[in-house]
């Protein structure tokens, strides 16, 4: 403990220099922790968007349906999807199963026809588990979107909700009557007249230009689907168990392909990789700055104490103990820097979140979002551990320099 006490006193000896070094450590902690909190917000937002945008936690698909255009037809489907959904609903880990039909075709308004990508959903279950209402709120603000509402639970009604871009292309609005055309499961051409009951803004322009939603009853009539479904979106009771449940349910449903949401949400994965690359590089630069700053401080401190080290060595201090002394100094710098960094991070985080800053819309999306830097203790722990390790490494060189001093020369040092 005497070495620890000596180390602490030595840091207090040059208060200004120690304070400057601490500021570098605090700045490093602050930048990395805020970036980590921002990343957590982004990942959370993207994962929520993917899960509540229709994927659920797990997707049960016909084998090979995740690849190619077959995903947009019933050519490859779960032949008795409804029965499979009923079976899965009895599983204790499953909160709900949302069957879906994905299809494509032409949407006509008089002489105008536009190709569409359609999804048929259960009008009762869908709003309970998916972010349908939020998309509708966005659509209601678009031209012709006033009075937007969700699909009626009545299976006899033929209703459609259009993406805002698709509605604009057809000059349609809430209340318009349109014709949906597609091919049935057996390849015959079929058409159904539908009423537009709402517009939706899905956040991506490309989706808004092509996407529409109908009830399973409407799609069944159009496609002559019977009990066949394109896929089932499974909502789990414990989202954290997604990976484990995927393996378990896959084993139960060997004839299907069960995929977790994060394998299917390619946008989420790409953004995650991009963020890791950007913030990883930023972290590397910051760690390097901390390394150089602390190494410089400790080296200057060693150069100023050459004679003192000579005296300590003369008194019997082993070279390894001098190395440990410098490691203690690094340890205190790191601990104090991280503690101060955490305090400043929490304060700044609270301040920034209180400002309700609006972030611009990310590329390819149609609306921005509010900045809400997350509180992520794991990130703080990783940053603190990383900084501590960096500082301990930076203390090695000055420590070795001190340990290698020749005593008689150190005692002569002026």
């Amino acid at each position, binding site marked *: 403990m005497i070495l620890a006490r000596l180390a602490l006193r030595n840091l207090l000896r040059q208060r200004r220099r120690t304070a400057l070094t601490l500021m570098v450590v605090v700045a490093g902690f602050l930048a990395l922790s805020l970036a980590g909190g921002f990343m957590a917000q982004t990942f959370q937002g993207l994962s929520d968007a993917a899960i509540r945008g229709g994927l659920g936690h797990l997707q049960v698909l016909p084998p090979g349906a995740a690849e190619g255009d077959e995903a947009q037809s019933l050519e490859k489907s779960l032949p008795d999807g409804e029965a499979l959904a009923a079976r899965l609903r009895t599983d204790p880990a499953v909160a709900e199963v949302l069957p879906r039909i994905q299809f494509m075709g032409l949407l006509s308004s008089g002489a105008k026809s536009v190709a569409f990508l359609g999804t048929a959903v259960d009008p009762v279950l869908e709003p309970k588990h998916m972010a349908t209402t939020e998309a509708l709120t966005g659509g209601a603000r678009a031209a012709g979107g006033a009075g937007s509402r969700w699909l009626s639970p009545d299976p006899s009604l033929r209703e459609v909700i259009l993406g805002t871009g698709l509605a604009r292309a057809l000059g349609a609005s809430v209340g318009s009557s349109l014709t949906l055309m597609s091919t049935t499961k057996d390849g015959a051409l079929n058409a159904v007249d539908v009423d537009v009951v709402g517009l939706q803004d899905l956040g991506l322009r490309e989706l808004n230009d092509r996407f529409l939603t109908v009830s399973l009853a409407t799609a069944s009539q159009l496609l002559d689907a019977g009990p066949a479904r394109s896929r089932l979106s499974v909502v789990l009771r414990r989202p954290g168990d997604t990976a484990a449940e995927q393996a378990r349910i896959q084993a139960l449903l060997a004839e299907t392909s069960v995929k977790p949401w994060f394998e299917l949400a390619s946008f989420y994965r790409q953004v995650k990789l991009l963020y890791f690359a950007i913030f990883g590089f930023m972290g590397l630069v910051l760690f390097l700055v901390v390394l150089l700053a602390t190494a410089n401080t400790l080296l200057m401190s060693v150069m100023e104490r050459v004679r003192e080290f000579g*005296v300590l060595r003369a008194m*019997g201090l082993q070279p390894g103990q001098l190395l440990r002394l410098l490691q203690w100094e690094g340890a205190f710098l790191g601990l104090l820097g991280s503690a101060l960094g955490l305090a400043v991070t929490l304060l700044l985080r609270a301040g920034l979140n209180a400002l309700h800053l609006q972030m611009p819309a990310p590329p390819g999306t149609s609306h921005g979002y509010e900045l809400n830097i997350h509180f992520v203790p794991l990130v703080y722990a990783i940053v603190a551990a990383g900084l501590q390790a960096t500082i301990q490494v930076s203390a090695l060189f000055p420590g070795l320099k001190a340990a290698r001093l020749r*005593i008689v020369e150190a005692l002569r040092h002026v």
Partner: protein
Amino acid sequence: MLQLCNLTRAYELGGERAGVFGVSLAVPKGCLAVLAGPSGSGKTTLLQLAGLLDTPDEGEVRLGGELVSSLPEKARCDLRLRRLGFVFQAFNLVPVLTALENVMLPLQLQGVTEAEARPRAEAALDRVGLADRRHHRPGQLSGGQQQRAAIARALAPDPLLVLADEPTASLDHAHGGPLLDLMAELAAERGATFLVASHDPAVIARAHRVFRLMDGMLVGEERP
């Protein structure tokens, strides 16, 4: 207690050969011995060899009959920590520690607990007349007080041999005299052996044995 046998340590200083050459001497237990001679005569070099701070080119250092000059560095460190004490011309107290903490330092480095080291350090400070200054840092002490604290630090672990390099050189006569009296008293009282490098006549006058050096060689031995 201390035997230096045919000790040689040569080095270049300003283009000239300096150091000590073939010095042999013996210092008995409880003796206040002085290495006397002008600047550059090899006093400090010999003291550093005797204190295991440097390694001789030739010759041997024996402490209590044991050959110690050829020991590996770790064992020499341990020996310095447990058997030797040092007093330097510039006092060289650790500036961030109080007088008491400075005296406790070698004890704690030996592994003595703080609870045990504190009374021993307080007694050592009391013996050198610094009981009321124990919580002062070196910067708050006069030169004489700092050197007395350094003596207390050297003596607190009860060493066999205390090596002092020009201990009065940074002090005026008023402070140097009492310090020497104190060292002589402690040598008699504790049976500690002192080897002091000095050209101060006041130091030489109080010595039990004087070894005179010139150009790195022993040229005389006196027993006043």
